[in-house]
């Protein structure tokens, strides 16, 4: 029983996360000037759902906060509270605050008492001010002092528009309003749309209409009773507002009942990720099996039965579609990350005292869930960087003729089988002189190395590189871009930066659509096929033999553009030690973690293809230098190489060799 409740609680917290993002998205749009009923409605619904769920699970710090927040949004929705910059800024802060409350509730920690009080005060004040100052006239509001738990109270939307002659029949709308007020919490908005200019006004005619929002437990009959004497002299509609529904409009069609808790528009189910992974694997298997079958069927069979070919190509199409659809299940819109960034930017702007706007694009780009989970930190890091280093102070910006507000843009798009994410700013750009100077000072490059501007820009990804003059909490803790680069490489992606001095810089992340598939180079070593991830390959050298040098106690090195990289003959590491270098052998220069390179000599390059990554550790101990395995088109297993691990093996061998050389020397000296 307990575990069931726990499960619902977790589900609620998950949902809160989604609602939080909705809130963030809609409020941000409103703050930027979008005026759309749906946005306000979405925001209102999000808060309302949070409030309802929080009440159910007894998160009693969330409920009152959400209630006030909801009241404000409700006012906005009904047009009583005008949307102002101040209001939206406060609302966004309140959303952050609410997120903190939810987080605290979820992790069973208590925030300091009164943490939310200031925000609560601001919200209430804003709601209050706007009500009092509201120029619309005829607006009044009675706030519920106690919080009504959802469910017991019903919300009613009442549209009351008297016919012209209502007053002549001795009816008084004010009485009706007062009677309604006695039923519960009432919000009234006057409709002045048919009010004629003063000169044409007939004092005995009724011109005003009203729409009421009533929270009451008394039911429809009690409301109808109030209107019984005026029913024939007015247009009247009384509709119940269901909890997650918006029905501020007079249109009764808007009041079509919905399921209470479900998010309208999308219907989703929550599925255990393991089940989906199993499906992804199986779909991959089917694709491989069907390729095998296609290879086994030879031409004579096709000639004997022409339909075979037709059916087989059908199968091919279906398998491909199946695989795509299954992959799509794992895919999630990158919005889940992007929606968290406005808050970060707001906080950064506050901390740095700079004015920064975040603009995002391509939030609906879909990417594998696992990739998304691991993207959040790198993106946050780069936004911190942009705010900390890239964007200048307002004063400095104005001097250089830019708008005082700095701009950070964050975008995602799919290009072929890869996702490209760009994080850019319109700040000062990379100071190449400074970067170069620093790289030399830190011994990362030699003073006389010839580098293109692009090369210099990309120096910022070297380990231990940080251009911040002082260490701040925002950026520049020395664990900078190299960590970002490493994390992205782990995902099979690549990082690049382009920069224009004075105009800003943009970091470009290129990522695979999924972690289950890898773009690999197929190579042959000692009669076996191996896969080297394309993402790690820098270049391939056909005639490398002339650039090889031997370093005593270290082994062979290869000269690559002025610097030397360790050279590993894979056939010596993986095959028999005596295997000779073949004539057509190729040296593949691969990047390793930490920024170095390694040269891998392979017998030949077979080709390039996407491979499905399989774990070898399900049935086996981890094997040094092997990251995983895949199954090639012929059904054989090919191992996926881990350049970093191979480099480590090589280094430890070299060290051992050096050690024995030293000790031998020492022995000789003793002798």
């Amino acid at each position, binding site marked *: 029983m307990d575990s069931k409740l726990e499960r619902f609680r977790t589900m609620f917290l998950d949902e809160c996360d989604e609602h939080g993002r909705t809130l963030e998205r809609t409020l941000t749009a409103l703050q930027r000037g979008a005026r759309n009923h749906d946005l306000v409605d979405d925001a209102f619904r999000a808060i309302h759902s949070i409030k309802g769920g929080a009440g159910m699970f007894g998160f009693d710090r969330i409920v009152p906060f959400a209630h006030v927040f909801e009241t404000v949004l409700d006012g906005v929705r009904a047009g009583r509270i005008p949307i102002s910059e101040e209001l939206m800024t406060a609302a966004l802060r309140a959303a952050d605050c609410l997120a903190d409350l939810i987080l605290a509730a979820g992790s069973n920690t208590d925030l300091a008492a009164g943490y939310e009080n200031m925000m609560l005060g601001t919200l209430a004040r804003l709601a209050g001010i706007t009500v009092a100052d509201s120029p619309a006239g005829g607006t009044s509001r009675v706030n519920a002092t106690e919080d009504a738990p959802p469910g017991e109270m019903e919300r009613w939307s009442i549209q009351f528009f008297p016919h012209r002659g209502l007053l002549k029949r001795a009816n008084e709308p004010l009485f009706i309003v007062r009677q309604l007020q006695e039923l519960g919490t009432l919000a009234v908005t006057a409709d002045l749309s048919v009010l004629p200019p003063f000169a044409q006004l007939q004092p005995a005619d009724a011109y005003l209409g009203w729409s009421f929002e009533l929270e009451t437990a008394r039911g429809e009959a009690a409301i109808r009773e109030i209107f019984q004497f005026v029913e024939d002299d007015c247009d009247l509609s009384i509709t119940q507002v269901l909890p997650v529904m918006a029905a501020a409009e007079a249109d009764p069609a808007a009041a079509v009942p919905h399921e209470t808790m479900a998010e309208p528009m999308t219907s989703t189910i929550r599925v255990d990720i393991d089940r989906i992974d199993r499906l992804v694997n199986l779909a991959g*298997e089917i694709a491989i099996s069907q390729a095998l079958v296609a290879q086994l069927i030879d031409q004579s069979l096709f000639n004997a039965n022409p339909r075979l070919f037709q059916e087989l190509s059908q199968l091919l199409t279906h398998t491909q579609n199946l695989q795509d659809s299954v992959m799509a299940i794992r895919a999630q819109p990158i919005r889940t990350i992007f929606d968290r960034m406005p808050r970060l930017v707001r906080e950064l702007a506050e901390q740095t005292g700079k004015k920064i706007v975040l603009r995002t694009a391509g939030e609906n780009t879909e990417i594998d869930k696992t990739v998304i989970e691991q993207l959040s930190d790198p993106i946050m890091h780069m936004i911190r960087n942009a705010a900390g280093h890239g964007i200048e102070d307002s004063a400095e910006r104005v001097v250089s003729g830019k708008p005082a507000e700095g701009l950070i843009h964050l975008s995602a798009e799919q290009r072929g089988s890869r996702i490209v994410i760009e994080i850019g700013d319109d700040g000062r750009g990379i100071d190449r002189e400074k970067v170069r100077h620093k790289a030399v000072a830190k011994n990362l490059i030699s003073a006389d190395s010839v580098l293109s501007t692009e090369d210099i820009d990309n120096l910022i990804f070297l380990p231990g590189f940080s251009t911040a003059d002082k260490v701040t909490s925002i950026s520049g803790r020395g664990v900078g871009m190299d960590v970002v680069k490493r994390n992205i490489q782990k995902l099979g992606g690549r990082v690049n930066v382009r920069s224009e001095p004075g105009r800003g810089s943009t970091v470009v992340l290129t990522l695979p659509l999924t972690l289950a598939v890898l773009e690999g180079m197929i190579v042959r070593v000692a009669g*076996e096929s191996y896969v080297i991830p394309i993402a790690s390959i820098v270049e391939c050298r056909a005639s490398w033999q002339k650039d090889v040098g031997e370093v005593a106690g270290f082994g062979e090195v290869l000269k690559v553009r002025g610097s030397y990289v360790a050279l590993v003959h894979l056939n010596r590491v993986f095959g028999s030690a005596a295997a000779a270098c073949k004539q057509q052998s190729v040296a593949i220069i691969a990047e390793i973690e930490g920024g170095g390179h390694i040269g891998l000599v392979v017998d030949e390059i077979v080709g390039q293809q996407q491979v499905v990554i399989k774990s070898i550790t399900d049935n086996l101990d981890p094997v040094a*230098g092997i990251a995983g395995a895949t199954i090639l088109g012929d059904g054989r*297993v090919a191992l996926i190489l881990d350049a970093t691990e191979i480099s480590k093996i090589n280094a430890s061998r070299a060290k051992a060799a050096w050690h024995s050389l030293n000790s031998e020397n020492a022995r000789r000296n003793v002798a």
Partner: protein
Amino acid sequence: MIGKRRITDYDDLPGPIPAPEDADVQQFVSFIVGEQHYCVDIMAVREIKAWTGTTSLPNTQAYIRGVINLRGAIVPVVDLRMRFGQGLTAPTPAHVVVIVAIGEAQSGLLVDGVSDIVTVPRKDIAAIPDLEGEERNPFFSGLVTGQDSLMAVLALDQLVSQRIAGHLSTSTAA
């Protein structure tokens, strides 16, 4: 050779295997490595495949012949002859890989051929005799008598990696 049918592929498995009615008997799949007969609990056997080659794994123990693709899973193949210290098998298409489950993991055993399915009363499973002054062979858990030969029962968890064996012992302890 032994006058028994050599099973080279699972297609040739003799019909449906009658399930032992009473719990007093245990069934084993027996196979040959060199001149020796060995057997494993039939419940551990997943399937029997003809040898079709492996992808060799660098930098591992010599008795791991490499890995094969078993319907999408990457499964290691242990050369039993090598495991018992009798040198590498020179496999031919007539050689057989017995796929066994060891806990959650799967492993292939390269043997010369599968010979039979034997049903043995539990009371007839003998312990490995303690040899004077020598450590007991960890690869075997008992001895059974087949129709005309003595067979050692393989202790599968001892044949494979320490990690998987370690995992097994912790999971059974828990």
